[in-house]
């Protein structure tokens, strides 16, 4: 990083989270698109809209892990998106930080809930 601190290639942003988060948002988006298609196909191929069919789908260990990966992608994606909203509209540092902390807590809580739901089946 230090070699970019002089001359025309000088790094002008301080926190280094711009490009990395931008990239992660796109990668997690692709993961979710793929999962949506997998879920749709699995649901159609399964052809059983009753409880047994639906629960059977998620009783499969592979499907559990895929669902968890998609949901974790969703939570990280949501963190970046909501963080962007706070950065755009909320200027006072204290309020923004509070909202960002609440966002993280909200999403970590959702992740814990999601794990519990999936491994109960």
């Amino acid at each position, binding site marked *: 990083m230090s070699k970019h601190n002089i001359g025309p290639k000088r790094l002008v942003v301080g926190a280094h989270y711009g490009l990395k988060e931008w990239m992660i948002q*796109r990668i997690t*988006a692709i993961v979710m698109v793929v999962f*949506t298609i997998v879920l749709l196909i699995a649901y159609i191929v399964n052809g059983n809209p009753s409880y047994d069919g639906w629960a059977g789908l998620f009783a499969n260990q592979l499907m559990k892990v895929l669902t968890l990966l998609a949901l974790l992608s969703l939570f990280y994606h949501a963190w970046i*998106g*909501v963080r962007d909203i706070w950065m755009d509209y909320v200027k006072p540092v204290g309020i923004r930080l509070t909202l960002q902390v609440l966002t993280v807590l909200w999403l970590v809580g959702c992740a814990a809930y999601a794990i519990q*739901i999936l491994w109960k089946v």
Partner: protein
Amino acid sequence: MSDSHQDANTAQPRPVFRNIGITQLAQYRLPWPGKVSILHRISGAALFLFLPFILFLFDKSLASEVSFAYFANLMGNPIIQLICLGLIWGFIHHFCAGIRYLLLDLEMGVDKAAANRSAISVMIVSLALTAILGLRLFGVF
């Protein structure tokens, strides 16, 4: 620069463009890509806020046959149906607009006319899919 030139500059008040305020939003006519963009943000924020609700429905649909029956009963409630219709639109719009952004990132369809067309397509496709799933949700088929 001559003196007369400078006088002409100071005599005319130069137009000032400030950030748009909340009161101006109603009159502000966004182009289609702008509409897709703000709806992308609104739908994303709504999905974020309703995450526990969505997980709750997922939980009830999955936990047991008793909870599945509770879930099925809940989905018959008109208020829940309306919320779900909104969330279905939010998901599909966010999904379609997101794919449009991924393509734009690959420099596909970045010129003005193509970007306008793709934005209109996102609106039409997401509303059409919402309508189809909405009919399924309200038990039409």
